[in-house]
């Protein structure tokens, strides 16, 4: 047994040495909820492509959106000698510790899928502005996204909409929820004779089985719902919710909308299991990566008393035809090839922001002509 343990120990140390060897390229850390779930693996795919094109090493840490793991991930990446890191945090309060760690270790930092709310988290926002290493944030307009999803559902005739979140208190979920509520308010104001109602959220975690159990509980408790919004959670919560609806014989009767595209969205749309989805935003971390890469290279200077903000557009898909075009350029291929990624790395920050805003299916189609 001692010999066996010695062999295991030697192998573990050897693998560390092998991975550490030749680590002279820039090293950028990625603190992500999961690099293997539906959305996370897509993010990893495009980040790996960018790292390959720009000759950068990446180090991933899956923190599961657990607050202490989020803050610990920055410490781990700093200890690993990262020159910069990008992070998708859970709650904005975590950013206090993360920014301090990055400042202390002179490690550049950018958020993806997130931005610190100036009003709700003024201390963290101030710290981000003051830190010379917090370079910027890339995020979607989650409130608008929420409003759009509710509007689409109401236009499809849904009047009682249930909501399944993933973790209570998650910053993105709270913004989307705000959007759903605003969407309902806007609809009811415009259609006082045909009002819609949004139920309070129940939380289904980020796994398929908990997603299914929660969706079943929601549907059993509210038999008259005609729509279910699965707010996100990386895609697995949605897979579970769809399994629940299918097993209860309600496919097509309850219209499902979500954010985070599934790999088989075309089949789900064709079968009526999904009414539509917003997503395609897996390239968001690419722009956070570009911010940090340019900061590490000395190309971008941190704006005094502020930071860069890039708004990334959502794509909306509501039919199999919509999805076919999306799949061609975003699933089977990446929206940027190696030469485009190298060209992107040379853009100024305002041009990078414009590049982000311009991303759409049509944009990729034109570039591929």
């Amino acid at each position: 047994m001692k010999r066996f343990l010695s062999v295991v120990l030697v192998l573990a140390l050897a693998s560390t040495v092998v991975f550490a060897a030749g680590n002279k390229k820039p090293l950028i850390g990625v603190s992500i909820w999961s690099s293997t779930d539906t959305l996370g693996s897509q993010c990893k795919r495009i980040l790996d492509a960018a790292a390959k094109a720009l000759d950068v090493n990446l180090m991933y840490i899956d923190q599961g959106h657990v607050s202490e793991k989020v803050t610990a991930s920055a410490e781990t990446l700093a200890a690993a000698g990262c020159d910069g890191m990008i992070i998708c945090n859970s709650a904005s309060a975590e950013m206090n510790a993360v920014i301090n760690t990055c400042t202390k270790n002179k490690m550049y930092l950018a958020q993806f899928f997130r931005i610190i709310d100036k009003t709700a988290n003024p201390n963290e926002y101030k710290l981000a502005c003051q830190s010379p290493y917090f370079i910027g944030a890339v995020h979607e307009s989650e409130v608008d996204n929420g409003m759009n999803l509710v509007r689409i559902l109401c236009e499809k005739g849904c009047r009682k909409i249930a909501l399944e979140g993933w973790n209570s208190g998650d910053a993105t979920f709270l913004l989307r929820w705000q959007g759903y509520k605003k969407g309902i308010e806007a609809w009811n104001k415009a259609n006082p004779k045909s009002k819609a109602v949004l139920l309070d959220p129940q939380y289904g975690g980020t796994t398929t089985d908990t997603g299914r159990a929660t969706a079943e509980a929601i549907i059993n408790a509210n038999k008259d719902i005609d729509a279910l919004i699965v707010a996100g959670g990386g895609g697995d919560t949605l897979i579970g919710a769809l399994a629940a609806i299918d097993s209860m014989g309600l496919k097509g009767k309850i219209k499902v909308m979500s954010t985070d595209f599934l790999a088989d969205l075309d089949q789900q749309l064709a079968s009526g299991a999904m009414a539509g989805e917003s997503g395609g935003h897996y390239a968001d971390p690419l722009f956070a990566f570009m911010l940090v890469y340019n900061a590490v290279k000395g190309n971008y200077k941190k704006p005094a008393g502020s930071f860069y903000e890039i708004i990334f557009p959502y794509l909306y898909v509501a039919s199999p035809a919509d999805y076919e075009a999306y799949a061609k350029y975003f699933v089977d291929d990446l929206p940027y090839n190696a030469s485009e990624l190298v060209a992107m790395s040379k853009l100024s920050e305002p041009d990078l922001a414009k590049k982000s805003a311009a991303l759409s299916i049509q944009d990729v189609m034109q570039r591929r002509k």
Partner: protein
Amino acid sequence: MPPGFWRPRIINASGSFQKLKASRAFGISALVALTLLFWAVFRLLSPTNFGSSRQMTDYLQTSIQYAVGGCGLYFIVVMGLFDFSIGANIVLSALVGVLLSRHYGYWGLVLGCLLCGTLIGAFNGLLYSRLRIPSMIVTVGLMLVLESVANFVVRLDRAGFPGKLSSGGMLAFSRAPWNYIAAGAAFLLMFFLLRFTRIGTYCNAIGSDELVAKNMGVDVERYKLIGFVLLHFFVGVMALLTVSYGRGMLAVTGMSSMDRNFKPLMGTFFGVAFKKYGCPVSAIVIGEFIIIMIFNGLVALNVPTTINDFVTGAVLLTIVTLTNRGAKGSVVK
């Protein structure tokens, strides 16, 4: 009438009641009564949204996967051991099953889950008995190892949807009757092992006093190893049911798989609490059903998830305390 004529009869009646109180029938009646109590409370509070026969079937389908895991955990928990790698094994076995199902269909799915689960159990047991350090420490280390292996396995899955079962096929175990058949077979196996083999008796003996059991001739190390193998065989069945139920499995790292340990464990607590009535299997199955029923009942009442967790925890503590509290002055391990 001679003095004390009634006395023996009174003693007999009291003895009969004590005997009844310790019987399997009493234990099962108490479990059924608890189920009816919770059903009645939520049914009264939410008559239209809770507790119809269709809904009860849904609750049962959700609960059986956790009950299978709870049965497996019982083997080592009664011996005073614990295993933190259950969640990681569920993830890894499910992903191995999904990967093999791409090539070998249902055989790959079922055998992948069961064999992978059992092999991990044998490995855990061997490592525990050889290293001679507490099971918690061994299994925390193994949890991290298994999570990493699961991440490698998911990368081997070249399907468009890694780790997910395709919606067209491979879903027999996600619904009746196959999910009930798989779970029912596991419950029967557990019942058989506890009732008709020496494993159950020896596990209890080791849990009561390991040294005494050893002096009585019980091969403690061997039965601990058997306990780990059986636990992870049941975990393999749970992996099959869980991956089918959710139609996929997510590979996680950083001890995130640990969340999956606790729902089966709650059922095991019921089993341990009702062990004295000789009905641990029924207690685990009904216990998990009660927990899922409470969750659904609170959702029907539109109670937030955080309060839901609080209520579930409080109910579990209350039931286990009422049924399994030691006598005053007794040593609680």
